[in-house]
């Protein structure tokens, strides 16, 4: 599903590499945490995966396609197959929960009837059926992130990429969100989560990729937040 071969990234020639010779494979249906201190390169890696940026060197394949060779006009179609979840939710705050999710289906040109049918279904999955017509800005952080999740899965993507999805949430809400992500993963969607949340990583015991100074310092199945040396 994802294959990185000798992947390097730096923003300009005077800077050192943010990502330095990354090599890894993530298979279909995996649940992977990417952990590491701030500045280790987690966010940069996620940006590469959705082709917001291009690697300086190396190969990065997502869904079997080499992103370094993907023409710009194909990028939207790549992103329709990836659900993004953000620390700051990135929702249209003045609009309703329904609008925020329907929006993603409209982007792909889904028929209006299909949108009316699917949006309540997905909101039910994340437990927010009763808030469907509430404006996002009137909801709590946890509820907003559930909408973020619902938005990420509405188009049934093959992969979810979450950048610090619990960074702005209290521990109880964080756990709820992670349980939702696990549920999505169990149904077959690959999930990649960059996080600082030690408690969550330790509790879930999934594969953990450790990034340090742009290098992979460890890669463990059923890992915990602090790498076993």
């Amino acid at each position, binding site marked *: 599903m994802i294959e990185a071969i000798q992947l390097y990234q730096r923003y300009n020639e005077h800077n050192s590499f943010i990502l330095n010779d990354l090599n890894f494979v993530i298979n279909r249906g995996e649940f992977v945490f990417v952990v590491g201190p701030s500045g280790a390169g987690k966010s940069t890696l996620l940006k590469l995966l*959705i082709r917001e940026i291009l690697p300086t060197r190396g190969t990065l394949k997502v869904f079997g396609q080499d992103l370094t060779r993907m023409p710009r006009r194909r990028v939207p179609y*790549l992103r329709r197959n990836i659900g993004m979840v953000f620390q700051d939710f*990135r929702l249209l705050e003045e609009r309703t929960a329904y609008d925020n999710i329907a929006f993603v289906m*409209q982007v792909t040109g889904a028929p209006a009837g299909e949108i009316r049918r699917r949006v309540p279904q997905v909101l039910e999955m994340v437990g927010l059926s009763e808030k469907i017509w509430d404006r996002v800005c009137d909801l709590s952080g946890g509820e907003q992130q559930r909408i973020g999740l619902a938005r990420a899965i509405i188009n049934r993507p093959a992969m979810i990429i979450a950048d610090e999805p619990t960074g702005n949430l209290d521990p109880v809400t964080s756990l709820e969100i992670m349980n939702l992500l696990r549920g999505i993963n169990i149904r077959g969607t690959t999930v990649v989560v960059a996080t600082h949340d030690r408690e969550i990583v330790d509790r879930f015991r999934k594969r953990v990729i450790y990034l340090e100074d742009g290098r992979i310092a460890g890669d463990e199945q059923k890992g915990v937040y602090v790498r076993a040396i």
Partner: protein
Amino acid sequence: MPFNGLLYGVVEALRSLYRNKGMSIASTGIVVITLLMLGSFMLVRLNINHVTKAVKEQVEMVVFIDENATLEERESLRANLVSHAGLAEVRFVSKEEAMERLAEIWGDFVAGYRSAEDNPLPDSYEIRPIVAENIVALARELERYPGVEKVQYGEEEFVNNLFAVLRVIQLISLALMGGLAILAIFLISHTIRLTVFIRRREIMIMKYVGATNWFIRWPFILEGLVIGSFGAALPLAALYYLYDASVGWVVSNNLLFLNLIAVPSVMLELVKYLVPLGTGLGVLGSLLSMDRFVRV
């Protein structure tokens, strides 16, 4: 783009126009004001052109034929004038016709001169040049033709001054219109850039969920189109009433020498320029100002 996408764009554009009411009104207002100024200048300029053209059409010279010119000279003069590339109209006026005209004005005063032997008037050609400004040079040239007694074209200085003044007026109005057009482009693209900036978050989210660039641009283009259309329609209506009233005033005060262009043809001319200009500016403004945000 599928039909759903088009429909989405229309709904989204209208919704956004309504949601950002203040901004929409401000943008439209700026288009209205600039196009109103531009339109007023166009009105003035069109009428100046009209008057200039009328004046130029009246610029004529008369070539008087020497009494003693031989038949050959007369014939070659006629041939030269008729085939001259710089002349729009060449009309022979015989001494009899000239006398007829005189008699129409003076009646009995000239009665004694009307017989062929007593007629003191020479034969002549009335000539209208193609380019009115060339009249002085042409007169000098025609004067040298054999069989020509003299060439008259009104006061040389007056003609030259008239053209100089008209040229200056035209240049000034052209410069003003150019300046206004640039100002309009600047203001419109600036306001639309501001609306795009307000919605940059929305655009960014659209990019993340896989919207194509055209899907993102389409509502903004429609918005620009609506703003531009209103921005052109309102000044057109205002200018119509203004010009109609001006023409009415000129007619009711018997100032017909002002020779204004008729209302329908002026409005047609304005529509031809202001509508494409308004909508074009709106759309172009949208496209230019959002390009930066689309490239994520």
